[in-house]
């Protein structure tokens, strides 16, 4: 089975942070063409919706957002365009995009360091129910891929993976590490 439309969400430290300050930052990313090789198009503000998609930077190849789905605030990359390569390649691409975006937000002076990766919680979704229905067969098919990827990402350090149970939801893996990692650490691991 082929993993496509990989979404990666890095949970941030303060889950109650106001999202409005992100709007000018994301507009700036469009203006400065901040995402390498990706076309950024528009900003959609859903901060008025509880536990919603937050503020979304709409792109052609993928969307970037600070997403509050499930009341779990995090920096999310949603790969929309189909990617060639292996499942590992696609996991690396989406994770690197999410980490890079998160690193930019951490360094953005207008945000005052308020959007920081908590260092330990990563959610991985597959945003296509036909490719990856949320059931035991999908878990079985992709579990080895997720572990292989996690070992690389955390350089063999301790982590755990659990999966969302609700069959209606997207296929979702919750990856948690025993000790915190910085964005730079993780980007380096994927280099």
């Amino acid at each position, binding site marked *: 089975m082929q993993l496509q439309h990989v979404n990666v969400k890095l949970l941030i430290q303060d889950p109650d942070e106001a999202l409005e300050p992100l*709007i*000018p930052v994301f507009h700036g990313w469009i203006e400065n063409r901040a995402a390498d090789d990706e076309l950024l198009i*528009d900003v959609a503000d859903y901060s*008025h919706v509880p536990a919603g998609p937050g503020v979304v930077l709409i792109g052609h190849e993928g969307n970037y957002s600070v997403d509050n789905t499930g009341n779990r605030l995090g920096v999310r990359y949603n790969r929309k365009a189909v990617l060639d390569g292996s499942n590992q390649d696609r996991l690396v691409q989406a994770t690197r995009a999410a980490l890079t975006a998160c690193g930019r937000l951490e360094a953005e002076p207008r945000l005052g360091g308020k959007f920081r990766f908590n260092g330990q919680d990563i959610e991985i979704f597959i945003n296509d129910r036909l490719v990856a229905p949320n059931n035991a067969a999908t878990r079985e098919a992709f579990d080895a891929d997720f572990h292989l990827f996690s070992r690389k990402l955390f350089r063999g350090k301790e982590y755990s993976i659990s999966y969302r149970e609700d069959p209606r939801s997207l296929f979702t893996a919750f990856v948690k590490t025993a000790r915190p990692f910085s964005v730079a650490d993780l980007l380096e691991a994927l280099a």
Partner: protein
Amino acid sequence: MKVSNSSWAERLTGKIPEGLAREIDIFETEIALRKQGKIDERLFAETRLRRGTYGQRYDNGQRHNGKTVQRLDYPSGDLTKGPNTMWDAPGMQRIKIPAGGLNAEQLETLADLAEEYSDGIAHVTTRQDFQLHYVHIEDTPSVMRRLAAANITTREACGNSVRNVTACPYSGVCPDEKFDVTPYSRALSKFLMGHPDTQNFGRKFKHSFSGCSQHACGLASMHDMGMVAVTQIENGKEKRGFEVSVGGGLGAVPYQAKLFDSFVPPEELLPLAQAISRVFARLGEKKNRSRARIKFLVQDLGIEKFKELVLEERKSLAPDPRWTDFVDGAEKFQETPLRPGGKAPLLGSETFQRWVKTNTRPQKQEGYTVVTIALPLGDITSSQLRSLADIARRFSKETIRSTVEQNIVLRWVSQSDLIELHKALEAAGLGSAGAGSIVDIAACPGTDTCKLGISSSRGLAAELRKRLGEKNFQLDDSVVKLHIKISGCFNSCGQHHVADLGFYGVSRKMSGYAVPHFQVVLGGEWEHNGASYGLPVIAIPSKRIPEVVSRLTDRYAANRKNGESFKDFIGRTGKVELKRMLEDLARPPADSSDRSFFQDWGDPREYTLADLGMGECAGEVVSSVEFDLAAAERELFEAQVALEDGQTAQAGKTAYRSMLQAAKALVKIESSNIADDPAQIVKEFRARFYDTQKFFDPFAGGKFAHYLFSAHEKSGEPYTQDSTRYLIDEAQLFIDAAHSCYNRISAPAHA
């Protein structure tokens, strides 16, 4: 875009009605042919529109970043999906929900589609549709197939076709209704969709059903064809029927529907709609889009002549069994509850009691309640849709409706379940109070996603919602009940004409910069099916609209006479005083270094009209034009006051003069010697601004110029109450367009 696109057809085989599956297959083929350049872009555009697949802002491959226009280099290069509409640009998918009726499985389908193809949000529109934004054209066949498998269609959701047939969401449970209009609205929707007689319209056609005349829920007065349930006694028996009106509509210039027949029996409803469709298709305007809605045909012919033509057409129709097949079933149609009725709890938390006050209303069936789920700006997340599906299954037989106030109602809730239901809604983030109140603001997409948007209607709505929400519990009860409705432009998708406080987006120039504004529209009425339309009073910068709301509501709360409605208060106060109350807010800021004034709500970019399309540069700004345009606005205001005072002829003449004044202001940019002669002004304006298309709105084209030409041609005719009312609206739009034209042609890099 989705890797699974090629697999859904096979996966859903047997789950989609055969005809519908075939139509979607054809649409998918048309997509492939357009990609190969084998279908003309205009033809493809109308094809996709008729399948509900719409364009969105920035789909022309350009975006203004507040300083300059930036190219958006979509990977598809020059390939288009319509004129000036790039193939890869994300678009909007509209989804028809006849009468707003939904079940739990359909909510779950919408949830999945919003998550996989859009941005995790489904949006309820002011016509009970759903919309998904940022959808790729090549994903749309999969979206349509998955909807079709849940018995939902997008067919004729846009384009020159019969749009979603709307109906009062309380039909069947409202204590004040004559009878349940739901089955009749569904029968009409099914009958007209894809009907050969509805395929050759010059513009869209909207139908609506209401169960009574006194409430707003159906808004029958503002539809192309509106049906209000009525009964009469025949041979000692109560007979159902409909009061049918035609030719209503909002749009740039709103028209109240005219009564066509005070009693149309159910068996005549479908053939009558068919006959009206045929007359509209045959005689309606086809070339000039701005005059192509049926309201113009009814106005031009007069209701009596129109009726005569329709009744003649009715006689010529070949009988169709579908006209009456549904009638017996409709009489017997009745939704049923899941649980036994109960008694409303007397206790409960303060939050619960507040919610009960605004979000529930008793049904005519004892022991049951309709619950309104208030959606902020009409938005609901995928997770919330799934939670709502669970709630609907737990507390009802999935009797769900979307509403024209961009909310969702759950019917047949046992009153004894209200506390538990509210807890479940709160857990899903859907338990907010305030439905139908001043914080429950309706807004079209505006500049967020609409190509026609001038100002940020959703941004303003979000800001007002926040501010009013903060002081909601201190607001006077009379104020809490008011309705605010906002449109991003003159096209009225936010239904601003029928609000207590209506706003629509315009632009004005201040200190050399374009500034987002809203026209303040007052005097409209939401009740009685949207029985009266408000008029613009003054254009105010967007950032000062919250202050407008404060001043007007404070004054109303303080000066309201016993039981006086807001509409009556506005009428009693008068336009002169209203304008005086607000005019200081229309002035430029003393300190123009505060750049936030030159931005719109929720958008940090310096405001511009450039995303609407680029105009020619006429070089230096001619400041006298701004004075002349302001004078035109003053004159128009005098026309409104005259109309309010019953001086119809004077109002008509003054409105016409205001248009001449605005036209002359533009002509003076090119020829300062223009005389005051109306014929000369119109001639020069036509030659210099209409024939050259300089005056053309990027999307409405020459529509507003025609208002001037028509006013000029009819200037010798007597002014009636109706014609003057329309003329004033048209004059306002003409002046707004003159401002926009001036902004475009005088635009420096930042405007």
